[in-house]
């Protein structure tokens, strides 16, 4: 491949998704599922620094802008697409693979976008494609959670769009470049809030632990990697150095980990823990120094791999046993030992054990907070690290694979492709920890940080060792129960109920009253007039126009039959159409 021949990575995934049914027909779906992400992964280094610039209705759009910051995210996104596709090879439904790939395409498109309009288009694609990964679980709870997810993201998208309009009105420039905290106005802040919603920054985070645990096994593996990390990328690109992000990020790390300590469902624990881990990145972006932004990117790279690994591990358990609640699991190490080893590698990597990827990435952000003289932030991040090891490093593996009592299940080990996916992610977690230069060389700024110094090693030994001791002392209080915990989604889940009550009772009653009057007085009068007019129209005018009205009625009948009344179908059709338009735009 030469540098002059390349394809926009998003286009590769969109075309790949559209052709999937064809390959399924010829029994070659599995080959295609590996080939497309592999090609995308291999060709990213041949991308030119700027491409896909088009004029559209007076706007200059840029579909491709590649620099060091883009590259580190592109690298991990395409690698993750490959790992996730291999993990999902056994899934026969093409639709699920197609949704995952369109979602990846949205994420890659956002990462490569050079202006706000392109960002917005791919941003929405990401939301609308990923919701199908929730719906494909096909349980009532998943359908409901999917609709909530979609509504929240539509709201976030509207905030983003409003921000883009105001920004354009003020500057007449749509290019997506860094915003200075001194000059930011309401437009830029709205854009930032739109981005923050996808990064799951409290108080607008509740969509994440609501939807991810309801997604399909493979869907959750994709979802945990792309939405929040794309948001971290756009925040790093546009809003580095905003102090609000630093404070909110530090709060996030603790908020997420607190819930991870008390939750029972393994995938909900991991979902809350995404909030915590993305908090480190948002905080790093908010600090805004070279070291902190480097740390945020490094942590995003490392986090995608180990969090996906953890989701693959508990996903395998869910696939093989049908259970994901800690209170219903235990003693599985005898039956799924390989899955256990991979998941524990993910657990120690996320906790930042020496020789794993968490050790070399998380510490960069904490050290950057220290060098920026943000001691409170630094201590909050360190405390979140304690909670991480407690909840995901020890509690989760302990209650699934060991635990005080066996659950009595004897599941088989997960299929080979799931294990291969886990192996690849586990390998990367250890490889990055042992050879950090590989990751450090990809970062946007030069790295002058060495994670393997004596003080950091000693600090890590203490934090991890004494957290384990704390777990040992308190293990009986941590025994999981079959409950769920209230979160801020209470406001819209209960609020919607109240709104519906209000609509049904007072509003509906007054509506009924007005309709009654209309029925008795107005309707008769109107009907008589309408009959007269209709006769005139049908017999007089349409006769003159050669029966076209009859044709329209017939056509309308046919259209009516296409409409199934299912919202999912409409959204699916709309998304498919949008993708087609995009393919045409990007290809030409």
């Amino acid at each position: 491949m030469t540098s002059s021949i390349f394809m926009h990575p998003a286009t590769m995934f969109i075309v790949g998704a559209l052709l999937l049914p064809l390959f399924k027909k010829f029994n070659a779906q599995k080959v295609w599922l590996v080939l497309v992400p592999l090609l995308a992964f291999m060709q990213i280094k041949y991308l030119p620094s700027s491409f896909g610039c088009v004029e559209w209705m007076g706007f200059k759009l840029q579909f491709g802008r590649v620099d060091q910051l883009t590259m580190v995210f592109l690298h991990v996104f395409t690698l993750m697409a490959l790992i996730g596709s291999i993990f999902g090879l056994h899934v026969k439904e093409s639709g699920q693979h197609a949704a995952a790939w369109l979602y990846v395409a949205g994420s890659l498109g956002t990462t490569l976008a050079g202006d706000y309009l392109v960002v917005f288009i791919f941003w929405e694609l990401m939301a609308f494609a990923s919701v199908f990964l929730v719906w494909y679980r096909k349980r009532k709870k998943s359908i409901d959670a999917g609709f909530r997810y979609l509504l929240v993201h539509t709201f976030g998208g509207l905030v983003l769009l409003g921000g883009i309009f105001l920004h354009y009105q003020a500057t007449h420039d749509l290019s997506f470049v860094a915003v200075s905290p001194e000059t930011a106005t309401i437009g830029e802040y709205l854009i930032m809030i739109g981005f923050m919603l996808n990064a799951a920054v409290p108080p607008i985070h509740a969509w994440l632990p609501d939807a991810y645990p309801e997604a399909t096994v493979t869907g959750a593996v994709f979802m945990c990697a792309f939405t929040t990390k794309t948001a971290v990328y756009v925040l790093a690109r546009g809003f580095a150095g905003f102090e609000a992000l630093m404070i909110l990020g530090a709060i996030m790390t603790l908020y997420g980990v607190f819930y991870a300590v008390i939750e029972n469902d393994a995938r909900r624990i991991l979902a809350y823990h995404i909030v915590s881990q993305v908090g480190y990145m948002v905080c790093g972006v908010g600090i805004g120094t070279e070291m902190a932004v480097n740390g945020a990117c490094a942590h995003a790279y490392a986090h995608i791999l180990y969090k996906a690994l953890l989701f693959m591990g508990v996903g395998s358990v869910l696939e093989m046993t049908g259970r994901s609640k800690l209170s219903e699991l235990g003693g599985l190490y005898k039956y799924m030992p390989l899955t256990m080893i991979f998941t524990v590698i993910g657990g120690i990597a996320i906790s930042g054990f020496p020789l794993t990827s968490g050790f070399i990435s998380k510490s960069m952000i904490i050290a950057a907070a220290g060098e920026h003289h943000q001691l409170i932030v630094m201590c909050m991040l360190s405390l979140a690290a304690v909670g991480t090891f407690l909840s995901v490093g020890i509690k989760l593996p302990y209650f699934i694979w060991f635990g005080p009592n066996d659950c009595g299940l004897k599941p088989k080990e997960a299929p080979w492709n799931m294990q291969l996916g886990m192996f690849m992610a586990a390998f990367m977690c250890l490889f990055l920890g042992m050879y950090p230069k590989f990751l450090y060389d990809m970062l946007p700024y030069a790295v002058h940080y060495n994670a393997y110094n004596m003080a950091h090693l000693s600090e890590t030994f203490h934090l991890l060792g004494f957290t384990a001791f704390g777990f040992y002392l308190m293990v009986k209080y941590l025994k999981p129960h079959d409950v769920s915990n209230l979160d801020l989604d209470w406001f819209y889940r209960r609020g919607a109920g109240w709104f519906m009550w209000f609509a049904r009772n007072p509003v509906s009653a007054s509506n009924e009253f007005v309709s009654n009057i209309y029925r008795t007085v107005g309707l008769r009068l109107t009907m008589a007039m309408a009959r007269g007019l209709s006769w005139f129209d049908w017999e007089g005018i349409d006769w003159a126009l050669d029966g076209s009205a009859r044709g329209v009625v017939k056509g309308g009948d046919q259209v009516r039959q296409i409409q199934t009344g299912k919202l999912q179908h409409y959204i699916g059709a709309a998304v498919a159409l949008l993708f087609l338009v995009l393919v045409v735009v990007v290809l030409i």
Partner: protein
Amino acid sequence: MIVKFLTYLRERPEMLKWLLMSFLAFSLVFDFFVDHHEGHFWGDHLVGFWAVFGLVGCLGMIVFCKGLSHVWLERDTDHYDK
């Protein structure tokens, strides 16, 4: 093989306890040989500061979170369906 090894360990909780204790002792001794002059704040200059931070943080977090869940946040899993 790995299963047998883990079962062997699981049947000997006392041994695991002493392994953990000896690691904690090692980590404390290790800290005496670390240069504490460079650090971001006063805690970094104290021997064993992060050990206390880890233990107190862990215990405090369990008590705080479990307590909060118990008195306020905890609901049935079908809470919103009712």
